[in-house]
């Protein structure tokens, strides 16, 4: 993680170092990325992304792995050991949508992955896509959500019949960790302000602790403006004028709601990228939409979300130029409106959409 941040920080400093860096990269060879295609439309959109990356001559070597929950020794559910090893080695992962079968006896795959790699930060950059019109224009914000504790700790009790208690857990360490990540991210990506979202007027101690940690970390990042805002004020202002927000950092539940709200502003989960950052330098980028079993295998899926997540991955690895190139090709295709998939309002197939992007990249 530190290495990546250092590399990406370096690449921000002056364009002159950029070619030198990518040269160094290719000298080192290809970067291995663990690819988890997922279920439903997962395999086809993963194939689309691989094709586009090949057309762009990205120095990425894909290692495809499948994750299904298996019961390990001691009765705990875990992901297959070869997938875990692959991820630990490569440190970077790209994941398609995984389905959670109801009453399968095991927790959701996403939860398992989160626990296995201690993915503590969920990052969702929401940028308005030119060419995909929504009532909101010029949205450019990032939501950073604490992903391990908070309201989703899963600790619930039935006190007496008819009274249920859910516990929201906020710890100093997790709050500090997410605040530090948020400021690091802001610094590395040239964002000017970080806003902590909370409800400390009602949840005085828990959100109060979260806020205190954010304030403490803000002291070490004087170059970045730090503000605090109530959750309800953020929601109110977000739907009236989303351009006033930059980077938002918050605990789990608020993050869940706000990140989906922001995804709705730019057009939904079908076009929103997402990345999960883990404690040991592991980063898994994913598409957050569902598996869409009704259109699986029919070449109708929209690979945009997975593609933009892959672009996020490239930026995380320091390959900013390549990332921007692929992103521009994708946005140009959408803006052109000639080969849009059904969910974007067109009639074309996934393969046609993919081919158009590949062609644009090769033309660049």
């Amino acid at each position, binding site marked *: 993680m530190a290495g990546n941040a250092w590399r990406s920080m370096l690449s921000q400093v002056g364009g002159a170092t950029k070619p030198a860096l990518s040269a160094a990269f290719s000298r080192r060879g290809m970067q291995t990325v663990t690819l988890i295609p997922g279920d439903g439309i997962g395999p086809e959109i993963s194939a689309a992304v691989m094709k586009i990356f090949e057309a762009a001559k990205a120095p990425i070597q894909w290692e495809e792995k499948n994750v299904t929950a298996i019961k390990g020794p001691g009765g705990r559910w875990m992901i297959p050991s070869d997938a875990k090893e692959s991820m630990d080695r490569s440190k970077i992962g790209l994941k398609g949508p995984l389905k959670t079968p109801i009453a399968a006896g095991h927790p959701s795959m996403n939860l398992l992955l989160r626990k296995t790699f201690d993915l503590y930060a969920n990052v969702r950059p929401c940028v308005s896509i030119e060419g995909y019109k*929504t*009532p*909101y224009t010029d949205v450019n914000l990032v939501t950073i959500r604490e992903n391990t504790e908070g*309201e*989703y700790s*899963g600790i*619930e*009790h*039935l006190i007496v*019949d*008819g*009274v*249920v*208690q*859910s*516990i*929201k*857990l*906020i*710890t*100093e*360490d997790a709050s500090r960790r997410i605040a530090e990540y948020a400021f690091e991210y802001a610094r590395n990506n040239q964002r000017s302000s970080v806003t902590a979202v909370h*409800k*400390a*007027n*009602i*949840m*005085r*101690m*828990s959100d*109060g*602790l979260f*806020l205190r940690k954010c304030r403490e970390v803000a002291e070490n990042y004087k170059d970045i403006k730090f503000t605090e805002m109530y*959750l*309800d*004020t953020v*929601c*109110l*202002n*977000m*739907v*009236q004028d989303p351009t006033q927000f930059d980077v938002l950092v918050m605990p789990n*539940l608020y993050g*869940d*709601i*706000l*990140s*989906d*709200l922001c*995804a*709705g*502003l730019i057009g*939904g*989960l079908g076009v929103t990228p997402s990345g999960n950052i883990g404690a040991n330098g592991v980063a898994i980028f994913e598409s957050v939409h569902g598996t869409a079993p009704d259109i699986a295998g029919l070449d109708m899926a929209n690979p945009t979300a997975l593609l933009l997540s892959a672009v996020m991955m490239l930026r995380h690895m320091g390959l900013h130029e390549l990332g921007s190139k692929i992103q521009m090709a994708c946005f140009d295709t959408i803006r052109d409106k000639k080969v849009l998939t059904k969910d974007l309002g067109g009639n074309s197939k996934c393969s046609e959409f993919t081919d158009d992007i590949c062609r644009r990249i090769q033309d660049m």
Partner: protein
Amino acid sequence: MAAHSAVLSMSKIFNPFWGGRLGNTVKVFGTSLTSHRNKGSRSPPPAKYGGRHTVTFIPGDGIGPELLNHVREVFRFSCVPVDFEVVHVNSADESEDDINNAITAIRRNGVGLKGNIETIHTMAPSVKSRNNLLRTSLDLYANVMHCQSLPGVQTRHKNIDIMIIRENTEGEYSSLEHESVSGVVECLKIITRTNSLRIADYAFKLAREKGRSRVTAVHKANIMKLGDGLFLQCCREVASGYPDITFDSMIVDNTTMQLVSKPQQFDVMVMPNLYGNVVSNVCAGLVGGPGLVPGANYGLNYAVFETATRNTGKSIAGRNIANPTAMLLAGCMMLDHLKLYDYATMIRNAILSTMNETRLHTADIGGQGTTSEVVQSIMRNIQSKGPLTA
């Protein structure tokens, strides 16, 4: 009480022998009859002292005091038979005396109109939010907000008409927190069957009363299986008793996504406390902002009215730029509650006419009018249309 004694006397006439015994039975049923009448959830307090109601006014902080003054001004101008008992609550005071005075005043008068009381962060966590204390002490369990697109206000989405009913006393706002180990804080979210049934019942009754066709429960039961699961179950139980109203449910993150893309699909929404906070603020933003939507907190015996999004508005306080619409409409809701329908309609029409026809807007909705200009315009409108003014 009259019915009770009438039945008793009737029973004595019809059967002198059983009269006494029947009388006992009637006493039991009679009591429940009268108490059921008193339990009529939104009956206003009796108007004493010459047909005038007394209402508790809590100015609060920020823009609260000035907006409440405007409400008083408009009411006086329109000769509304309402007297105001003003109770100040000092948000910087650590003791709970002020808020207890306010609560007693509302208990005495039955109805209140309030601005938002600020919660200062620098005070110790044991100092609880005054607004929350008020709501829980008076058991104002239902927060009702009606978001409607106004023709005179420019917004991105049109034709929105959503009623939001939010559980107001428990859930995440239970204010039960503790630090078990240093650096680890636990906050309890309580969901009870009684309160969930109560709020679901309120939602469906209101939907039926207003002729609405669909109620959507907003939850996160896929993650909080026991807590929100119980809430959802209670909603389903109540829904089965209202076959004329469609019931469905939606997860809160999907709800917010749908609200910003297609808000017209929602009709009535019912939800626990925190999601209610998020959804009501999103909806208020969709119809034009915090200055436009009034909110009401109803309990079994009391009702307190305020702006729906409960903002203190510190940054715009004292500058005569706040939008008085929300507070004035809240005042009209209060008049409706007191069964002073004519006054309520008169003032409401004047407000809407200023908003939609004259189009005199304050800065928050893109205009250049000041608060006093808008209030003057409303009063001029009342004078030209109303029968009697001061």
